[in-house]
């Protein structure tokens, strides 16, 4: 049921953006600081920066494990810059595979205890490439309606039939699997943690249902790596289904603390993806310094039990503290390191966002269409490097800003 388009088009291809231009102008006219144009002039640590001239606590960076300033990680990056230069200037399948890319894939294979690992230039490209390449004409993709944009774009780029089901609804998923024509290939796509509300998927049940119907399963674990599951392998590990999952997609831009994406798998034919996956082939590979920092960080994450524990303590404390203050949160219990605070509407959400920024706290303002059910959210993501004291400070800021803007 496609959008109506073209009717009022006077030849200016930009007229399709008039609604969003008006929305943005309306928001800025109310005098609020632009939530989508924040500049960090200086970054002091994984949890502190100078933003728009103010010293600010960072509570919306996905820098879950605080690896961005780890001395060993920084040293590895500097050494690679010196030894291998600033960039590869090439595709992974031509001149863009250096020793560091192989070492990074080796670190991933060890981290996940799998046979194959393929590194992409971003997490977005990993989803785009794997999904669009795997599911072809006549195949069916069954996916959660709240999937990340990179998953939807992977679906749009491929030729498979795309069938969404209601968020985290096991029965709705199974009904759709049952209706797929006999003999058609099936790919079920799920996420471990859904980044908007910070809720996790019932993977134990869902993966079992998918396997019962003969589907391959891909799980995006972008928001769980390093701290969910005994070895930090994600919700798939916590739910005890990691061996039944065919593909895990992940990113270096959250817990790992740099940029890049990957897919790991035990499929015996997996390596052929390097030749047939266009978002892998037709783009330049990651710079040597980036893969060196990623590999070092991944190896350190394998032994980060204490940090992991502290991250969970921080997340649970913030979740409980905000609940006690009277804020409405995306989940009843703390399920991940994302705590989403539900705002009544965009205008008041932007007001609260600005009040927090003036208190010295940065969170993400998330709005439709990125959010489920047209919600406006203030999304907080904790870091293992937030101190107990900082969490107390953060709660105080929320209380003052919430009262000042009438949210609580």
């Amino acid at each position: 049921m496609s959008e109506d388009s073209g009717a009022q088009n006077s030849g200016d291809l930009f007229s399709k953006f008039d609604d969003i231009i008006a929305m943005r102008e309306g928001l800025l006219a109310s005098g609020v600081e632009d939530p989508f144009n924040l500049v960090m002039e200086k970054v002091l640590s994984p949890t502190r920066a100078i933003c728009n001239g103010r010293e600010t606590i960072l509570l919306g960076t996905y820098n879950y494990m605080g690896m961005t300033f780890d001395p060993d990680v920084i040293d590895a990056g500097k050494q690679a810059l010196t030894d291998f230069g600033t960039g590869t200037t090439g595709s992974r399948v031509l001149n863009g595979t250096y020793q560091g890319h192989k070492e990074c894939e080796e670190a991933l294979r060890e981290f996940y205890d799998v046979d194959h690992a393929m590194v992409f230039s971003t997490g977005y490209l990993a989803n785009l490439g794997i999904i669009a390449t795997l599911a072809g004409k006549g195949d069916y993709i069954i996916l959660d309606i709240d999937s990340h944009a990179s998953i939807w774009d992977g679906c749009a780029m491929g030729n498979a039939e795309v069938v969404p089901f209601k968020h985290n609804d096991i029965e709705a998923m199974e009904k759709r699997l049952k209706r797929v024509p006999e003999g058609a290939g099936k790919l079920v796509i799920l996420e471990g943690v859904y980044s908007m509300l910070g809720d996790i998927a019932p993977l134990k049940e869902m993966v079992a249902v998918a396997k019962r119907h003969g589907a391959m399963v891909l799980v995006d674990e972008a928001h769980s790596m390093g701290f969910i599951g005994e070895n930090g392998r994600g919700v798939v590990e916590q739910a005890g289904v990691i061996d039944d999952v065919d593909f895990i997609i992940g990113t270096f831009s959250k817990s790992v603390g740099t940029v890049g994406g990957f897919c790991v798998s035990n499929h015996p034919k997996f390596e052929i993806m390097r030749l047939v996956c266009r978002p892998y082939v037709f783009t330049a590979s990651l710079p040597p310094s980036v893969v060196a920092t990623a590999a070092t960080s991944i190896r350190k994450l394998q032994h980060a039990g204490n940090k992991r524990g502290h991250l969970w303590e921080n997340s649970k404390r913030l979740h409980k503290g905000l609940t006690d203050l009277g804020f409405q949160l995306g989940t009843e219990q703390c399920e991940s390191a994302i705590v989403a605070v539900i705002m009544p509407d965009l205008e008041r959400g932007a007001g609260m966002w600005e009040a927090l920024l003036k208190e010295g706290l940065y969170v993400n303002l998330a709005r439709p269409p990125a959010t489920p059910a047209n919600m406006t959210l203030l999304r907080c993501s904790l870091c293992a490097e937030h101190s107990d004291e900082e969490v107390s400070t953060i709660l105080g800021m929320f209380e003052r800003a919430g009262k000042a803007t009438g949210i609580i």
Partner: protein
Amino acid sequence: MDRAAVDSKIRELIEPFNKKGVSLKDETTFVGDLEFDSLTVMDFVAEIEDEFDIIISMNQQAEIENFGQLIDSVTKLQG
């Protein structure tokens, strides 16, 4: 189910989604006339899929703009 039967069943299913009581003709559009947003489309499609035990993939949905096209597609998809 023939086209007429599909038509009357879908008229029943659409009722709770047709908040303004727009009168339904074959050329009534979902986005324009009925003002369905993407969430409404998802819930409405799920209702039809469950009622007729069919899949209407996103690819097929993209081709369906008005009520008549929906009836045609569902009649055919029951196959």
